[in-house]
């Protein structure tokens, strides 16, 4: 048996893999990261798809990245720079619009124009959501205890969780229980009457999930997206300098500075098992690397069903992993544009009002533009997808990175990132070029209703379906969270009961990505928590 050259090998150079490697190296371990693609970042990459136009291909905003990770890995020193998105602008079919601004008073004025009642309710709602996000946050930093286990560690974890729940006020505890179990439509109907407000807010409840806003469980996903934090300010989303690739670059830089060795173009074929322990990996080209532990930052399906021979796992466990839901539901349209799309309000009174909020007509293009006029609109988009069709009128979340970071496109030109839902992975008849063209056309014709000049401005287009996410970023099912944030796939059930503590039934083999607790987004929590657990086992 060859002597292990490394303490740990991390499969996958996405943000979680790199964060995991960085934390292990920080504890003095010799770590090797193996990335399948020629570039690092997984789903957090920036690529120049057309000469001069740089796309933040998959993930496109930052906010969920845990602040303690930014601090502990000193990411700003390694080049991380987050540019805040100042607004979310929802254009409406009737030429009006609704916007939320960084300035609270502006948002209030804006809402008041649509509904005085909603403007009043907004403050209470925002306070509730912040309180709820604060209440959930400690749970995200916890290794989920298994309620069926009698091991001292799980019992202690359960005791801590119960103690924590008991420390919440009765009111907050009930509000949290409601929030976790209800639909985002019900939650928002309780508070607001303006369709565009409810539509835009409900959209965060469906992202990465194959459910409509009327399905129970979506309020939790909405809360998950509230967890974002930049400089301690809740609910602030930002765009990284150089796109999501910029985040990856800073983490890579930090990891390398801590001594992590990284190899790209190194697709892993199999995990080597010796004496019932993970002992290294074999690459597709036949190279072998040996280590004391192997960490997978791939999704659970690849981690357990592809990299390791099934004989090393109990049948029950494999069934649970096969049943883990990874239905991709979103796609992207990345556009290179010769001019800015014109989303400005067509209604003169709305335009006057917008000018009173911000004299600069370009302000709204520095923030997010959301095509989400009502809950019903999104629910209907879901109806198409559940029968295997891309939504004819989809929910679209747009940012124009070149307005925030001019280095992203040639002068005067723009890149526009459109996150689109719903785009089913299992599209009827499978994904063909015609299907992709149809999906792109659905998006463009929807956008055209709000920005009539859009079509003629397009000089380049990259269409990404869940099948493309699977092929390029290597995520099974193309699910951006490595597994839907469904209630039965969270906490001690993620990715499978008994195995929510980043360990796996194969000793020496760990899971450290979004498919583990606490789940998806460019958050990094799974990478860090897994590193902590690995180091505990080292002793």
């Amino acid at each position, binding site marked *: 048996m060859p002597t292990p050259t490394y303490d740990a090998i991390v499969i996958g150079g996405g943000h979680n893999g790199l964060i995991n490697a960085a934390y292990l190296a920080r504890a003095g371990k010799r770590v090797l990261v193996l990335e399948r693609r020629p570039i690092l970042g997984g789903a957090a990459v920036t690529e120049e798809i057309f000469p001069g136009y740089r796309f933040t291909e998959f993930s496109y905003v930052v906010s969920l990245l845990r602040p303690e990770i930014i601090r502990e890995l000193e990411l700003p020193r390694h080049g991380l720079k987050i540019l805040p998105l100042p607004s979310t602008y929802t254009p409406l079919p009737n030429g009006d619009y609704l916007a939320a601004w960084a300035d609270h008073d502006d948002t209030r004025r804006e809402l008041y124009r649509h509904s005085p009642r909603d403007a009043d309710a907004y403050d209470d709602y925002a306070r509730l959501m912040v309180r709820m996000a604060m209440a959930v946050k400690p749970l995200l930093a916890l290794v989920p205890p*298994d*309620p*069926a*286990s009698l091991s001292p560690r799980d019992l202690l974890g359960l005791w801590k969780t119960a103690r924590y*729940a*008991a*420390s*919440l006020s*009765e009111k907050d*505890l*009930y509000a949290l*229980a*409601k929030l976790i*179990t*209800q639909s985002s439509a*019900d939650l928002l109907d*309780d508070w607001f009457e303006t369709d565009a407000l409810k539509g835009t807010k409900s959209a965060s409840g469906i992202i990465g999930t194959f*459910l409509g806003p*009327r*399905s*129970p*469980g*979506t309020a939790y996903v909405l809360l998950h997206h509230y967890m974002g934090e930049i400089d301690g300010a809740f609910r602030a989303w930002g765009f990284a300098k150089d796109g999501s690739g910029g985040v990856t670059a800073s983490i890579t830089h930090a990891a390398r500075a801590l001594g992590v060795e990284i190899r790209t173009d190194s697709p892993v074929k199999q995990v080597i098992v010796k004496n019932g322990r993970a002992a290294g990996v074999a690459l597709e080209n036949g190279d072998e690397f040996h280590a004391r532990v192997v960490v997978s930052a791939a999704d659970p399906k690849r981690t357990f069903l592809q990299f390791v021979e099934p004989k090393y796992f109990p049948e*029950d466990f494999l069934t649970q992993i096969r*049943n883990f*839901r990874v239905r991709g539901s979103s796609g992207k349209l990345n556009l290179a544009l010769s001019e800015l799309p014109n989303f400005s309000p067509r209604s003169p009174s709305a335009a006057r009002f917008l000018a009173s909020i911000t004299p600069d007509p370009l302000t709204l293009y520095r923030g997010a533009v959301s095509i989400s006029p009502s809950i*019903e609109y999104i*629910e209907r988009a879901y*109806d198409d997808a*559940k*029968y295997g069709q891309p939504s004819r009128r989809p929910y679209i979340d747009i940012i124009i990175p070149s307005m925030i970071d001019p280095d992203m496109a040639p002068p005067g030109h723009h890149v526009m990132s459109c996150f689109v839902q719903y785009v089913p992975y299992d599209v009827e008849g499978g994904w063909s070029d015609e299907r992709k063209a149809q999906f792109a056309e659905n998006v463009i014709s929807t956008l055209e209703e709000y920005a009539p000049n859009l079509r003629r401005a397009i000089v380049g287009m990259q269409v990404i379906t869940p099948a493309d996410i699977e092929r390029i970023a290597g995520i099974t099912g193309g699910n951006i969270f490595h597994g839907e944030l*469904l*209630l*039965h796939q969270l906490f001690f*059930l993620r990715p499978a*009961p*008994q195995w929510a503590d980043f360990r796996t039934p194969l000793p020496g083999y760990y899971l450290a990505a979004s498919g583990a607790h606490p789940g998806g987004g460019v958050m990094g929590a799974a990478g860090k928590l897994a590193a902590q657990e690995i180091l505990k086992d080292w002793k």
Partner: protein
Amino acid sequence: MNHYDVLIIGAGHNGLTAAAYLSKAGKRVLVLEKRPVIGGFCVGENDTPALAPFPRGILRPDIIRHLSLERFGLNPAPVSTDLISLLPGGRQLVLSADTAKTVDSISQFSKTDAARWPAFVRFIERAAAFLEAAYATPIPRLPKFSLAEGIPLAQLALKLRALGPKDMHNVIRLLPMTVKELLDEWFESEELKAAIATLGIHNANLGVMSAGSAYNLLHQYLIRGGSSPERNGRGWGQPVQHTHQVIAALEQAARAYGAEIRLNAEVARIMVENDRVTGVRLHSGEHLAASTVLSSVDPKTTFLRLVTPEPLDPEFVWQAQRIKMRGVTAKLQLTLASSVHPLEAIRASASSSVFIIAPSLTYLERAYDAAKYGQISEKPYLEMTPTGNLLSIHFQFAPYFLKPSAWNEETRRILAQTTWNTLNEYAPHLQSEITNLKSLTPLDLETTFALTEGDPHHGQILLDQFFFMRPLPGYADYKTPIEGLYLCGSGTHGGGGVSGIPGRNAAKSVLA
């Protein structure tokens, strides 16, 4: 003036169950019923059983025992019926308590599924048994409860653990799932999955692809008589017991234990002084005094109409306003020319069976899509219960909140026409037999049976209205913010269905 210890509003099955328990314990009880008949939604207008929203139901066995209902004419161990799915081309699928019979029927569709059926039933039985234990457990106010209050909770947790790690995980995991996900994990036959999935959407404003529909499946299985040692696997069809028989036995028991029942006595107000209940005022203007009042009426009506909002905390009122009712069920009754079994031509032997039209999961999901946008399903999920020459039809989805207009004669006509068209497709020979068709829209359910928004469960069976959140967070112990006022209807913990659980639990809470 008569003095009563306890006034109970509503003589439905839960009001009567509570009355029987309390009078048996020596309390002087008066039950006040607004209709001229006893039985709430278990008994139809003009006493026609088939047009009752719940034509069949089954009380939990311990209630039958405690109240000696056998002495009052109730068959303690009724046989349950088969659930027969009528499929295109005259095919049928039978789900029965008789495992061999079910396995045989399923094997026409899939041998693999037939082989998995017994294990699936065992799992659902264990899960439903846990749900039943949860429904029998008094839930204290969280998070700060006394040690004494914590004991039943701890016992419940031990029961959950006693399932063993695998089942425990599976039960917890099941509750928030969609019924489609659950069934996809077990079976491959679309016909079988759809038939089982009807329990997941029955009376619920949910589709087979809505999260939480698996919990409703478990709840329906339980209230159809499943999950208890003597009833293994019996939760598929509806029990043979007609609810008017259940009501008759409960009424006799309550009276025998000393309870009085007044008909045509509609309560206008629950009287409150200094946060304490003092009695009720009837519509006639009469005042009745008592220090304990139980309302079997739904929580929305109780808190928003019978108690004036003044004694209640505004936040409490806000939450009560938001209890989700949103009925989606209509009921129809067909009278057939002959007393021959209405579906005899397609199945002669199943005289007491329940028939469903639910050919596929997509069919059911599309039926639900209509309800999301306030429309009557064009191709509805139907459940048909024959009684003599009457056929009671459960129609879903017919939403209470119709768009653009509310329920009227035109929409009632559409409801009948849609039922007619659907029957024509799946049971064509019926057409010539029909002599009369009556319908109860969700609006009728509200006006006739006092079911707010036409919801037979007094509050949807949803995860956010479950356990310590039913009827309202912090009030799962049948108490209310008003001292002496209790709830005992279906809108409370364990409620929804003709199980008697809330009536029993509320009586225990009063006596505790």
